[in-house]
């Protein structure tokens, strides 16, 4: 019989240089087998061909001055279309002198979003400050107090409108979607049937048709003289639409919760409401963070469909600028700018969702 004696010095032998550090990383990620090596070389070649011309077009040969002079015969990009029309693209037809109000509203929104990123700040006070913040934002946009002039919602547009539709749309759709999912998973026949009917009907029609219905068909049912604000109607359509998709994703999460979790909760004496709130939903919603953020992101981008009912959101204001003869032919620059704004918002959402997933991971 042999006896193994473990020598502590053997632990100090280092792995080969080629499997750690920069070299190790390059080998493992870029040249791992012939197929990956070929891919790496091809991609490098493609980058060499594409990046320098783009940099020349976008930066070196580009024009930035709002006057737009020299744009017509320039080789590079004409960013002047953005700098010259920035205020219209961002704020639409909102009165020029009062545009500090939507700007302030957006600053409040971004501040609240950033403060809410940290889960340590999630207290009741934060909920109240969100309510207060949203109210202040609405009042700032509308005006009509402290001597501020009233700006009718027909003049709202651009980025504030997009953010308004998105923030209210997402915060409205998520709880509604969760309720619908619980309803669909319910043992009560009537509730279940109603929820299934709702979800399938909404998912069966495109958002565009819902928006049309909200702007054309819905007013027909209202009594004479009663009107509902157009933005509100579009907002409702977005909420109803997104909620149906959220509901199906959350239902998937509910199905992933083991029977034993319900049984353990029930055997402690928790009732249905407590079981759902304390045990099932926290786990189910955590599981469905990735797909629900996907839905939220696509809902955010879908707000641009409100152009078809003649609301001046960010996309519509950009297109209006392009309709101006002076700026025709510079659509690439305008759309790149627009894409950047959308990208920043969407990246914030997906980045935050990954962080939440990491923080909520408890290893089981």
């Amino acid at each position, binding site marked *: 019989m042999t006896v193994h004696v473990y020598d502590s010095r053997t632990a100090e032998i280092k792995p080969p240089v080629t499997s750690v550090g920069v070299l190790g990383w390059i080998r493992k990620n870029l040249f791992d087998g012939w197929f990956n090596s070929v891919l790496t070389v091809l991609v490098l070649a493609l980058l060499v061909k594409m990046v320098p011309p783009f940099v020349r077009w976008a930066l070196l040969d580009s024009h930035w001055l709002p006057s737009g002079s020299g744009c017509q015969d320039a080789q590079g990009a004409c960013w002047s279309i953005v700098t010259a029309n920035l205020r219209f693209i961002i704020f639409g037809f909102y009165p020029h002198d009062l545009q500090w109000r939507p700007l302030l509203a957006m600053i409040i929104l971004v501040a609240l979003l950033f403060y809410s990123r940290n889960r340590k700040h999630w207290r009741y006070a934060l909920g109240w400050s969100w309510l207060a913040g949203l109210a202040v934002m609405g009042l700032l946009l509308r005006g009509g107090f402290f001597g501020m002039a009233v700006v009718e919602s027909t003049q709202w547009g651009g980025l504030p409108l997009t953010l308004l539709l998105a923030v209210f749309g997402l915060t409205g759709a998520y709880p509604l979607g969760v309720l619908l999912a619980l309803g669909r998973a319910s043992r009560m026949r009537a509730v279940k049937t109603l929820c299934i009917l709702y979800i399938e009907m909404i998912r069966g029609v495109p958002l565009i048709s819902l928006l049309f219905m909200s702007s054309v068909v819905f007013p027909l049912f209202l009594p004479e003289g009663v009107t509902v604000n157009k933005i509100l109607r579009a907002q409702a359509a977005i909420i109803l639409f997104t909620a149906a998709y959220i509901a199906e994703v959350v239902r998937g999460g509910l199905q992933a919760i083991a029977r*034993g979790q319900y*049984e353990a909760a*029930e*055997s*402690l*004496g*928790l009732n249905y409401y*407590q079981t759902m709130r304390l045990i099932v939903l926290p786990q189910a919603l955590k599981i469905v963070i990735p797909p629900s953020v996907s839905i939220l992101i696509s809902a955010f981008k879908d707000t641009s469909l409100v152009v078809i009912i003649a609301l001046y959101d960010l996309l519509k204001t950009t297109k209006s600028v392009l309709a101006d003869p002076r700026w025709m032919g510079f659509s690439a620059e305008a759309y790149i700018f627009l894409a950047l704004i959308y990208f920043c918002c969407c990246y914030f959402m997906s980045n935050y969702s990954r962080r939440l997933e990491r923080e909520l991971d*408890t290893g*089981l």
Partner: protein
Amino acid sequence: MSDNPPESGHPEAPIIEIAGMHKWFGDFHVLQDIHLKVARGERIVICGPSGSGKSTLIRCINRLEMHQRGRIIVDGIELTNDIKNIEKIRAEVGMVFQHFNLFPHLTILENLTLGPIWVRKVPKKEAEETAMYYLEKVHIAEQARKYPGQLSGGQQQRVAIARSLCMKPNVMLFDEPTSALDPEMVKEVLDVMISLAREGMTMLVVTHEMGFAKSVAHRVLFMDYGRIVEENTPAEFFNHPQHERTKLFLSQILH
């Protein structure tokens, strides 16, 4: 253990009384004509081959499963379909599962305080003190801030026992509490159950741990095909089994 089973004809009413109880899963007659009385402080071990209905029987007692005929009376309250406060009865009956069923998104301490805070309406501070007391008792107090996923199976099952105890139940049901554990962790869980038994807790335990049955149980029930086939004191049950089926079962599990 030296203590005697509670005397028959105890002045107090039995804490659990089951009479003529039947249950079906679809067409399958899983429990047939069950009669069982459990006195306060009594400890009963239920064994039998798999599929014999032993788990279903104890799950009927806190109404995780519903019976279709006969009566089940727990602590003076009959379990019926139109029972309004099933949560109240469940709070009095602790349950420990084969697969622990801890809540993975809550810390150990939160797992323990959840029931007392939300069902018993105990203030948080008091609930935490109680929780620490019971964690101390199952020798795991130092893990209070961890999550279930960070604990071993044996530790998780001890937490599950402590979680039930925090509700200060009158009866504890154990559904094969050691069957999902690695062999070397079985003892730490059984030790906790034995010390619980010493304190006089009423226990119904579905298990194949015959050593536990011998040392702790007042009565052993043997079930097969949805019936209670044999019922006896551990000494009689293991040394002089009456039915052929019991003899066969014992010969297979006691090598």
